[in-house]
C-alpha cells in the first residue's frame, strides 16, 4: 500500500488512493460519533501521504504522515475527549441550515471543476525526475527558504505556548465566571 | 551659518515661553506665588540678555549671533534668528518693560497664574519677533504676542473691556492680515521670506521688488509701480495699525484706558515698538523706493498722528486715554524720522549724516519712550489702585501734599516725556528733529506743534491732579511704599542716566543705523 514501486499500473493505484481519500473524507464528516470521524480523518491523511509518495514527493509524504497522523490526530482526539464529544451526538448533528451549506459546496465544486477542466496547463505531461534527496532539500531550505523556515519555527513555538496557555486549567474558577 | 555655538537667541525666546507654559500648566494659587514666578523668569531672560550684551560687538552693523536652520525648505521658511544693535535694544526694552509690568501688577490679581503666564507668552512673542529675520518667523511671534495681549485686556480690563479688546483685536488682526497678504505676494515674486534677501532684491532703482512682482505674478495690466505700491501699502498697513499711525489709531485710547495698567504698560512700552521696529527692519530696507514715492502722504500721516493726537489729548478727561494719545504722538516722531530717512537726496553734502541722525534718533526715541511710557502707565496704574476707580482729570487735586515722592516721580516721568534735556526723552527727539529738519524742514516745524501740545496737556494734568488745593477723594491717597520705590528707582535711574549719557544706548545703535542708511541709499 505504501510504496509505489510495485509495478502495478499507476492509474489503478491512483484511483484507489483517490477513492480512499474521498470516501474517508466524506465519512469523517458524515459520521455521528466524533472519534470515528477523527479516525477516518487519519485514514484520509494516510491516503494523502500515500498519494504524495506516489508523486515521488517522499519527504513531504513522510512529513504529512508524521505531522498529521502523529500529532494532529492525537490532539484532535484529546480535544474530542476533553469536550465530552466521546459519547454519541445527542440530537441532530447537522447545523440548522445544513442544506444551503452543502448546496453551496456543491455549487462551488461544479464551478471549480469547470475551471479545472478547461484550464490550459493540464495537458502538460508529468516530469520524470528522481525525487530530490533530503540533503538537497535541507540545503535549499537553509539558503533560499531560510526566512520562511525561521518564521515557521517562531509560529510553531508561539502556537504551542499559546495553545498551552489557552487550554491550561485556571488555578480556581473565578466566582463571576458563569458556566 | 551659526556663528555662536550657544543658541543665545533661541534660549532668550525659549525661557519666557517655557515659563509661560509652566505657569499656565501649573495650578499655583493666586496671590504672591505666580507674580514671583513671573518675576523669576523675567529676571532669567534679563540675565541671558546681559550675557548677550557682553557678547555683542557694537562696532559691527550687520546681524550677529545668527542662527539659521532650515525649517520648512519647501516654503522657503528658515529658522533664521539674528540681531543687530536695534534688535538688541528692543530686546532690552521688552525685558525691562515686562519686568516692570510684572512688578507693577497688583498682588491680589484674580487667577494670577494665567495673568502672569500670558505676560510671559507675550514676552516670548516679543523676543521672537525682535530676533526674527524671516517673515514666517516674524509673523508667528507677532501673532503670538498679540493673542495674550487680547486676553489680558479681555479678562482683567476695566468696565468696557469687552469692546476694547474686540476693537484692539480686530484692528491689529486686519493689519496683520494685510501684512501677511503683502508678504505672500513678495514670496510669490521672489520665492523667499528672508528679510536680508528681500532687502537685497528690493534695492535698485528699476521699481525694485515691483518689477519682479509683475514678471512672476503675471499681472500685465497692473503697472509695476501700482503693484509695488499696492503691496507696500498692504505691509505698511500692518505696521501702521500697530504703531499706530494717525488714521488707524482709534483703537488705542479705548484699549489703553480699559486694559489693566501693567498690560497698558506692555502695550505702549513694547508692543507699539514692534510696529516701528517693523518699519525699520522690514519696510525701509525692502521697500525704499515705494516709501520714497509715497513720501508726502506718509509725512502727512506722521505729522497728523503727532499733532492731532497731541491736541486731542487736551480734550481728554480720562488720564489713561490722555497717556494713550501721548504715546501716539511720540511714536509719530519715530515714524516721521523713518519716512524722512528714506528721502532720495542728492549725492553731495552730508545727507548721510542727517539720515543717520534721524534713524538713530528714531531708534533711541523708541527705547526711551518705551521706558518712560511704561513708567507713566505704571504710576497711573498705582494711582488707580489707590483710588479704586478709573482716573478722571478733575476727580482729584493737590495729591502732592499727600504723596510728595509719588508726585516727584510722576513729575519726572511727565517732564521726561515732554523731552526735557537732562532726561532720556530729549536726546532722541533732538536727533529726530535734527535729521528731519535737514531733510524736510517744513515737517520739522509742524512737528514742533506736537511738542507744544504735549507740554500743554501734561502740565494741565500736573496742575489739576497734583498741584492746587486738596480735593476729591485724594484724602485716602498714600505715598509710594518702600517696595514701590524699589521698583521705580531702576526706571528713573535709566531715564536720568540715558538723559545725561545717551552714549550708553547709542553705542549699540550707531553701527546698525549706518548700515541701514547705506542699504536704503538708492
Amino acid at each position: 500500500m505504501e510504496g509505489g514501486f510495485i509495478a502495478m499500473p499507476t492509474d489503478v493505484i491512483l484511483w484507489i488512493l483517490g477513492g480512499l481519500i474521498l470516501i474517508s473524507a466524506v465519512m469523517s464528516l458524515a459520521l455521528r460519533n466524533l472519534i470515528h470521524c477523527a479516525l477516518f480523518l487519519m485514514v484520509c491523511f494516510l491516503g494523502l501521504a500515500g498519494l504524495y509518495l506516489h508523486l515521488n514527493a517522499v519527504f513531504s509524504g513522510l512529513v504529512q504522515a508524521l505531522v498529521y497522523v502523529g500529532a494532529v490526530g492525537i490532539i484532535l482526539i484529546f480535544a474530542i475527549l476533553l469536550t465530552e464529544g466521546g459519547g454519541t451526538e445527542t440530537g441532530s448533528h447537522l447545523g440548522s441550515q445544513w442544506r444551503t451549506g452543502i448546496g453551496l459546496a456543491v455549487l462551488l465544486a461544479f464551478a471549480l471543476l469547470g475551471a479545472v477542466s478547461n484550464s490550459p496547463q493540464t495537458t502538460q505531461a508529468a516530469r520524470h525526475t528522481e525525487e530530490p534527496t533530503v540533503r538537497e532539500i535541507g540545503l535549499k531550505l537553509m539558503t533560499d527558504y531560510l526566512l520562511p523556515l525561521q518564521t515557521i519555527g517562531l509560529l510553531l513555538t508561539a502556537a504551542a505556548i499559546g495553545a498551552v496557555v489557552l487550554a491550561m486549567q485556571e488555578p480556581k474558577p473565578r466566582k463571576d465566571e458563569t458556566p | 551659518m551659526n556663528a555662536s555655538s550657544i543658541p543665545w537667541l533661541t534660549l532668550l525666546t525659549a525661557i519666557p515661553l517655557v515659563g509661560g507654559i509652566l505657569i499656565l500648566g501649573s495650578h499655583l494659587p493666586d496671590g504672591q506665588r505666580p507674580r514671583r514666578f513671573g518675576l523669576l523668569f523675567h529676571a532669567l531672560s534679563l540675565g541671558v540678555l546681559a550675557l548677550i550684551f557682553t557678547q555683542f560687538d557694537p562696532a559691527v552693523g550687520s546681524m550677529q549671533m545668527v542662527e539659521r536652520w532650515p525649517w520648512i525648505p519647501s516654503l522657503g521658511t528658515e529658522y533664521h534668528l539674528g540681531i543687530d544693535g536695534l534688535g538688541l535694544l528692543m530686546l532690552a526694552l521688552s525685558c525691562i518693560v515686562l519686568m516692570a509690568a510684572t512688578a507693577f501688577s497688583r498682588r491680589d490679581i484674580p487667577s494670577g497664574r494665567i495673568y502672569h503666564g500670558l505676560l510671559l507668552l507675550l514676552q516670548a512673542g516679543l523676543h521672537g519677533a525682535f530676533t526674527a529675520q524671516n517673515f514666517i518667523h516674524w509673523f508667528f511671534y507677532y501673532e503670538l504676542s498679540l493673542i495674550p495681549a487680547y486676553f489680558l485686556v479681555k479678562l482683567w480690563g476695566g468696565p468696557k473691556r469687552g469692546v476694547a479688546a474686540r476693537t484692539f483685536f480686530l484692528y491689529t488682526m486686519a493689519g496683520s492680515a494685510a501684512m501677511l497678504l503683502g508678504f505672500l505676494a513678495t514670496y510669490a515674486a521672489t520665492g523667499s521670506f528672508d528679510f536680508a534677501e528681500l532687502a537685497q532684491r528690493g534695492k535698485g532703482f528699476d521699481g525694485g521688488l515691483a518689477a519682479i512682482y509683475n514678471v512672476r505674478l503675471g499681472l500685465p495690466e497692473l503697472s509695476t509701480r501700482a503693484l509695488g505700491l499696492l503691496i507696500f501699502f498692504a505691509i505698511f498697513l500692518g505696521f501702521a495699525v500697530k504703531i499706530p499711525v494717525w488714521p488707524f489709531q482709534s483703537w488705542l485710547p479705548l484699549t489703553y484706558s480699559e486694559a489693566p495698567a501693567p498690560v497698558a504698560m506692555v502695550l505702549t512700552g513694547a508692543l507699539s515698538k514692534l510696529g516701528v521696529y517693523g518699519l525699520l527692519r522690514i519696510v525701509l530696507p525692502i521697500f525704499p523706493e515705494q516709501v520714497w514715492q509715497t513720501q508726502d502722504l506718509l509725512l502727512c500721516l506722521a505729522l497728523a498722528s503727532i499733532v492731532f493726537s497731541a491736541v486731542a489729548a487736551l480734550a481728554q478727561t480720562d488720564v489713561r486715554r490722555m497717556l494713550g494719545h501721548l504715546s501716539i504722538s511720540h511714536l509719530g516722531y519715530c515714524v516721521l524720522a523713518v519716512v524722512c530717512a528714506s528721502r532720495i537726496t542728492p549725492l553731495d553734502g552730508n545727507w548721510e549724516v542727517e539720515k543717520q541722525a534721524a534713524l538713530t534718533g528714531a531708534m533711541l526715541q523708541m527705547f526711551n519712550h518705551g521706558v518712560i511710557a511704561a513708567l507713566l502707565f505704571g504710576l497711573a496704574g498705582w494711582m488707580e489702585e489707590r483710588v479704586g476707580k478709573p482716573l478722571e482729570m478733575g476727580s482729584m487735586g493737590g495729591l502732592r501734599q499727600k504723596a510728595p515722592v509719588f508726585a516727584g516721580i510722576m513729575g519726572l516721568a511727565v517732564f521726561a516725556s515732554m523731552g526735557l534735556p537732562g532726561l532720556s526723552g530729549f536726546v532722541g527727539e533732538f536727533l529726530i528733529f535734527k535729521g528731519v529738519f535737514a531733510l524736510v524742514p517744513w515737517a520739522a516745524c509742524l512737528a514742533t506743534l506736537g511738542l507744544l501740545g504735549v507740554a500743554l496737556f501734561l502740565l494741565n494734568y500736573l496742575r489739576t491732579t497734583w498741584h492746587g488745593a486738596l480735593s476729591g477723594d485724594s484724602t485716602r491717597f498714600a505715598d509710594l511704599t518702600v517696595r514701590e520705590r524699589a521698583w521705580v528707582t531702576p526706571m528713573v535711574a535709566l531715564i536720568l542716566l540715558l538723559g545725561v549719557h545717551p552714549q550708553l544706548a547709542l553705542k549699540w545703535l550707531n553701527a546698525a543705523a549706518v548700515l541701514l542708511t547705506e542699504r536704503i541709499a538708492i
Partner: protein
Amino acid sequence: MEPLKGLLSTLWKALTDQPDPKAPFLESIPEDYRSLASAVLSVAPILMVFPLLFALTTVLERKGLGRIQNRLGPNRVGPAGFLQFAADGLKTLTKEDVVPRAADRVVHFLAPIALVIPVLLTFAVLPFGRNLAPIDLDAGLLFFFAVSSATELAVFMAGWASRNKYSLLGALRAVAQMVSYEIPLVLAALSVVMITGTLSLSAIAAAQSPTPGSFLAPWYVFTPWGLMGFLLFMIAACAEANRSPFDLPEGESEIIAGYYLEYSGFKFALFFLGEYLGLFASSGLAITLFLGGWNAPFAFMQGWLPSWVWFFAKLATLIAVFIWIRGTLPRVRMDQLMGLAWKFMIPMTLLTLVAAGLWHRLPSAPLRWVACTALLAGAFLVLGRVLMPRTRHGRRVYRYAD
C-alpha cells in the same frame, strides 16, 4: 528448480555480506513479477526472524527477571524452560476471545492490528547488515519516526474502544507518555543526523565503519555527545515502548492491565508482540545511530564476522540491558515521568545538539573533548540538581488505622 537454486545463492550472498544479495534469485523470476518477488524477498526474513526473537526474549526476560529476583524463572517446558514461548503461544491461540458488549466492535478489533503494522513497517528501514537493509530510503530515519508515531493512535483506539474507565485512563497515560518521549527520541537522533548529514540509516551506519588504520571504530557513542545522546535515546526508547521504569500504562498494581485490559486471546498476544517489536525496532535504531550498526567495535575485528552478526549481537546485549533495567528500577510516578521528559530530557537533548554542533566545528581533538564534556556535564548537573524538585524526605510518620 531454478528459483530454489537462485534462492539459496541469494541467502548465501546475504549472509556473507556480498553486495546486491537478491540479484541471483530475481533473475530466475519472470519480468513482471520481479518487483513483487523482491518485495516478498525482503519482507519474509523480517517476518520470520523478529517474531522468533520475540518469543525468545519473553522467555529470556522471565528467566532473567527470575535470576535477578533470586528465583529460577520458567524451567518446566522444554530444556530449562526455553520452550515456554510455544506454550504461551498456544495458550493465547486457544483462549476464548472475549469482547466487552459495550465496546466499539470495529475499533476494538482494529486496534491491535493498527498497533502491530506500524511497528513492522519500521523494520523496513533498519540496515541489519552491510547491504541487508530491506529498503534504503533517502529519508529512512524520517520514515521510521513517521511510522512509529502511528502507534500512539493505535494505543488510544485500544484504550477507548474497550469502553472501560481504567483502559481509557491507561490509554491516555500511555499516549501522553509516548508523545512526551517522542520529542527527546527524535532530537537525540537528530544530533547524529546533524553530524553525518544524511537521514538514510545505511549511510549513517556506513559512516561509523572503522578505517583500517585506526584502533577504535569511530562509533558515535565514543564521543561525549554521542554517549549522552545514546543514553537519552535509550531512556526515551524505553519510555516509548512502555517498558520497566516507565511501564505506568499497564502498571498492574494501580490500573490492572492498562489499555489492553479488555483484550484476550490472540489480540492480547498481538499487543505483546507489538510492544516487543517496538522495543527491538528502537534498539535497532539505537544500534545503527550510536553503536555503529553492523560495524565491528575495533578496526581489526571488521573482517572477522559478517556484518549482521555484529548487529544481532549488539541487539542481544541491548535486550539484556532492558531486561536488567526492568528487574532493578522501581516504577516512576506519573508527574515525575512527565517532569523528567519535559524538564530534563528535552533540554538535555537540545544541549547534545549544541554539543554535537560544537564538536563538529571545533578543530583540535583535545579542545573538542574538553569543551563538549564540560558543557554536557555542567548541563547534566544543573538540570539534574536545580530543576528537579528536591525531594524532601520528611520524617516517616506512622498512622494507625482508627
